[in-house]
C-alpha cells in the first residue's frame, strides 16, 4: 500500500502538549514536512519561543533552541551568523513576536537576516491562560481585558505582516491560516516559499499563521475554526504582503 499521509520524520514521537484541537499542531506539521520536502531537514536549526510552543524543542526532530520570551529572532541571528550554511527558523506566538519581541523581529527583518519566521497568531496569550495579546480583537474578552478589548483604552490590534512588509530586508511576508484543508495547503505553500527565500539567501521571511486557541477562547476546536474565520480573517486579511523571491 502506498502511504498517502503519515507523520513527518522531522517530528519526534513525543506527544504534543497542546490542548485538543489547537492548530499549533497543524502548523508544526507543515514546518516539519517543508523541511523534509526541501531537503534541508538534516541541516535545520529551529528556535522556539516562550508560549505554548515552548516545548517544541521536544517535537521538532532537528537541533533546537528555546529562546527567552520574544528573543527568538535574536537567538536565530546568533545561530545563523555562526552557521550561515544551516537553515534557521523561528517559531513564535503573538505575545512573543508581536509584544515583548517586537524589536527583535523588526530588526531581524531590518538586517535582512536570512532566517524564516513562523508567526502563530492566535489573538491571545495561550500558555499563561488567556491574557490579552496585541493581536486580540476589539471586543474580544481576555483575562486582562475582562470586558473585552477596548480601542479607546489600548488601541486596535496590530497587524504584523503589514508592518514588517514595509521593511526592506523582509523579502517574503505572507498571512495564511489553517482552518480548512484548502487553507492548510495554502499555508504550506507559503511556508515553503519562506524557506526557499532563506535557501536562496534573499533575506528575512515571515509567514503569519492565524491559529486557534480553543481553550482560552472558550470554544470547541471545531467552533474555534469557525470563530477564526468569522472574526480574525476579516481583520487580518489573508494573502501575500511581500514576495521578492
Amino acid at each position, binding site marked *: *500500500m*502506498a*502511504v*498517502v*499521509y*503519515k*507523520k*513527518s520524520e522531522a*517530528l519526534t514521537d513525543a*506527544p*504534543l502538549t*497542546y*490542548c*485538543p*484541537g*489547537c*492548530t*499549533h*499542531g*497543524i502548523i*508544526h*506539521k507543515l514546518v516539519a514536512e517543508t523541511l523534509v520536502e526541501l531537503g534541508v531537514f538534516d541541516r535545520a536549526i529551529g528556535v522556539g519561543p516562550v508560549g505554548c510552543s515552548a516545548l517544541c524543542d521536544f517535537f521538532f526532530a532537528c537541533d533546537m533552541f528555546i529562546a527567552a520570551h520574544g528573543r527568538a529572532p535574536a537567538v536565530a541571528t546568533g545561530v545563523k551568523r555562526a552557521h550561515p550554511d544551516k537553515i534557521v527558523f523561528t517559531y513564535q506566538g503573538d505575545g512573543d513576536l508581536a509584544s515583548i519581541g517586537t524589536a527583535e523581529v523588526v530588526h531581524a527583518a531590518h538586517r535582512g537576516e536570512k532566517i524564516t519566521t513562523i508567526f502563530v497568531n492566535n489573538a491571545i496569550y495561550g500558555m499563561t491562560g488567556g491574557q490579552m495579546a496585541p493581536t486580540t480583537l476589539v471586543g474580544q474578552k481576555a483575562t486582562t481585558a475582562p470586558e473585552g478589548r477596548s480601542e479607546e483604552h489600548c488601541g486596535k490590534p496590530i497587524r504584523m505582516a503589514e508592518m514588517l512588509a514595509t521593511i526592506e530586508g523582509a523579502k517574503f511576508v505572507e498571512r495564511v491560516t489553517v482552518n*480548512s*484543508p484548502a487553507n*492548510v*495547503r495554502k499555508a504550506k505553500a507559503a511556508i515553503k516559499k519562506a524557506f526557499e527565500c532563506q535557501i536562496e539567501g534573499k533575506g528575512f521571511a515571515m509567514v503569519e499563521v492565524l491559529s486557534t486557541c*480553543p481553550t482560552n477562547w472558550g470554544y*470547541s*476546536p*471545531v467552533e474555534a*475554526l469557525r470563530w477564526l474565520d468569522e472574526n480574525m480573517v476579516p481583520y487580518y486579511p489573508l494573502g501575500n504582503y511581500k514576495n521578492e523571491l
Partner: protein
Amino acid sequence: MAKAKLTFDTEKCKGCELCIQFCPKKILVLDTETNQKGYFPAKVTNIDECIACGTCAIMCPDSIITVEKE
C-alpha cells in the same frame, strides 16, 4: 473491499474532532470508550467508503493518522 487503510495512534488522540469535521465522506466518529489519557479517540466507521484523500490526516493537529491506499 477497502482500497484505503487508516491507522490511528489512538493513545495520542485528543478527541478534538477536526478529522471528523473535515472528512468529506463523514465516516469518522469518536469512540465511546476513552483512551488512557481520558479522551474519546477518533475512529473510522466504514473504511470501505474511505477515498484515502488524507484530509483527516492533514487536519489532525497531533499527526496521529496514517493514510494508505492501494
